[in-house]
């Protein structure tokens, strides 16, 4: 069965690469460009994994993560947070809020793909 991945990031320049990579990996890819859209799509489409950027308009990644984790029906959903801020405090905040992994920009695309695969158990 094809795994479904939601990319939530407001920067088209990173979405291009992420979308291309994940499609190449054979995943079904959805894109959301702000926090609210991300939450709506995650609830409606129930993706297997969300790539969640922290700095987004309308609703930031932390809040989206928290809202998703508050929904027991989505417990199986994996969340990988992406951020341009590399502070330790933020990393542990993300993990404490229920993210499964945390990746700081700039990242290696190979590593990211490996991480996504392992989170999805592929």
């Amino acid at each position, binding site marked *: 069965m094809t795994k479904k991945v939601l990319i939530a990031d407001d920067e088209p320049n990173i979405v*291009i*690469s992420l979308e*291309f990579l994940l499609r*190449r990996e054979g995943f079904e890819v959805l894109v959301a460009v702000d926090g609210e859209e991300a939450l709506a799509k995650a609830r409606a489409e129930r993706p297997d994994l969300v790539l969640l950027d922290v700095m987004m308009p309308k609703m930031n990644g932390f809040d989206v993560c928290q809202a998703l984790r508050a929904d027991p029906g989505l417990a199986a959903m994996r969340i990988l947070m992406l951020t341009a801020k*590399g502070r330790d405090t933020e990393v542990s905040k993300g993990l404490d809020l229920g993210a499964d992994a945390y990746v700081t*920009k*700039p990242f*290696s695309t*190979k590593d990211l793909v490996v991480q996504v695969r392992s989170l999805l158990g592929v």
Partner: protein
Amino acid sequence: MNFPRRFVFAAAAVGLFLLALVAAVVGLMQAGRAEDTMSFGDRVAAITMVTAFACVLAFAALRELYARYVQGSLRLAEEAGALAAHSGVRIGDYAAAELCAVGQAINQLAGVRDALEGDVAGRVREARASLEEERSRLAALMADLDQSVIVCNLDGRILLYNQRARDELSGPAEAGSAELLGLGRSIYTVFDRSLIAHALERLQPGAGDHAGPTGGAQFVTVTRSGRLLRAHMSAVSAAAASDGEVAGESSGKSASDAALTGFVLILDDITAENERDARRDALIQSLTEGGRGPLGNIRAAAETLSDFADMAPEQRERFLGVIRDEARVLSQHLENAANAFSNDLRVRWPLEEMLGAELVAAALRRIGERCPIVGRIEALDESIWLRIDSFGLLQALSFLAARLYDEYGIRDVRLALSRGGRLAQLDLVWIGTSMNNETAMTWELDSMNSGGETSPLSVRDVVDRCNGEIWFQRERASHRAYFRILLPIAEAPKEAARGKEPARQGSRPEFYDFDLFRRSAASQQLDDRPLAELSYTVFDTETTGLDPSGGDEIIQIGATRIVNRRLLGHEYLDQLVDPQRALSPESIAIHGITPDLLVGQPTIATVLPAFHAFCADTVLVAHNAAFDMRFLQLKEASLGVRFEQPVLDTLLLSAVLHPNQEMHRLEAIAERLGVSVIGRHTALGDAMVTAEVFLKMLPLLAAMGIHTLRQAREASERTFHARLRY
């Protein structure tokens, strides 16, 4: 037994005298019996005469002896008593040699004692002089410190402060010229009480851990004018304070059991530093965090491109577009950051005042050190002071000279410093080959890299930083060329010209009073405290007229302070007040304040609260105080300040001291007490005279048994009523 010769003579004389007397009596008796030539009566008469003669002789001898020895001894005792009481007195000569000898012995003793006394007095003088010298040195040191220093006793009363502290902590300018900082004033008007208390707690021995008082405590606070201060507090220990000395930190001997008697505050204004740090933090953050996003995009795109070389051309073009976009964003970002950073570079180079001649001499030295160039002075105006970044300017001059040598082989340059209007012209002159204007421009704009020294700044940057201009010019006919740097001329720094000192003050301003260490809690009832111990605000007002309830207003307040019997002439308030009404010509004739002087001055609504703060915790003193107090009290309700301090009136005190004098005008009293009067009929001038008069009165009052504030007030009241009755 050995008898002195005088004793033997005296004994022999007494023996011979008795022998002669007995012989005479016996002779007379025998003469009668043998020839019967004398009757019985005649014989008795003769014997009586002989006896009487002997008595007279004996009396004379005894009187002489009494005068010599008994009276002499008594006189000697008196003289010795006087000698004991007053040094310098000596015992005179005596008829009796023995008493003379005793006198000399006493004189010798007195001589030894006087020498000892002189010695002790000399030592006391020496010790006092050296103490005074140390204090002067301390005061001088404090005055020159770049940090603010304040010393307080445990009550928070200020014992010492320096000029810097005064400048930094004085209230906002618009609140009149009121001083918050002053000897004997409370530090709590400047700093929050709990802040100080908390810092003190950390200083107190035994508080917290066993370590006792460490080097001190730190805190950061904001002043009323919004400046950020970092304060370092250190302890003053009891032992040091009882000697009347300040012992900076109580480290060293038995610091842990010495009780605190006060503290030293060292203050740094970190406002600018803090702002700079904040900017630098923001810069670093924008460089790291701001760079991550674009860099992440570029990396992802680049890796995708290289990993999937088989992608479609339009797909490839999109990825290349991402890389181009993001690289541009990142470049711009870096550029902005670098600009922000170079602004901060400028901030770190403060301008300093420098004598122009010194700059020229240093520049010549520096040019000669870098290259085999002979530097000369072409013209020099020695009176010019400059406000410059001297290091940068020296670098710029030697950079230009080195470049002249490197590129054109110029070995002979000259410096000229002259005045051109309100600007200084600093010229670097040479004769011979020179460049065109474009080349000169690039020299001005290039980073200064020469002789192994590199600087991110250009000559132009340095000149800009000094608020100057630079250009290149040449005179073709004479083959003379020069770089001219125009710089603003600075005022020659005045010797210790800091703040406005009234002329009345003596040699140096008195910013300290260690005797305050000995003072007990401020809360003590003022009434029963000795007059000599109190702090006073002596003030005077000038007004539009004599009738406050009829609408006359204050137009000037002058005040100064007395602490521990010292007039603190540099702690003063001198403020004109806009009365918001017309001045009468008669009043102008008295105080000489014309309406144009009052334009733009603050109104009483601003000045009176400032004055109220100035006289906090002090006793008010004024001449004919009732008049001034009436003006103040009429404003109390509307301005929300109350003058509840005790008030002393030099007019009434003068009447207490000299009840038989007719005149109690300030001039008359001043003349009586030997106070010279200068600058009368300015509020501050009169306040100063009043203060000096008041100080002269204190010992006279003490001689009348008036020692405390209560006694002074009661005596004043009595004369006041006495005067009313007439």
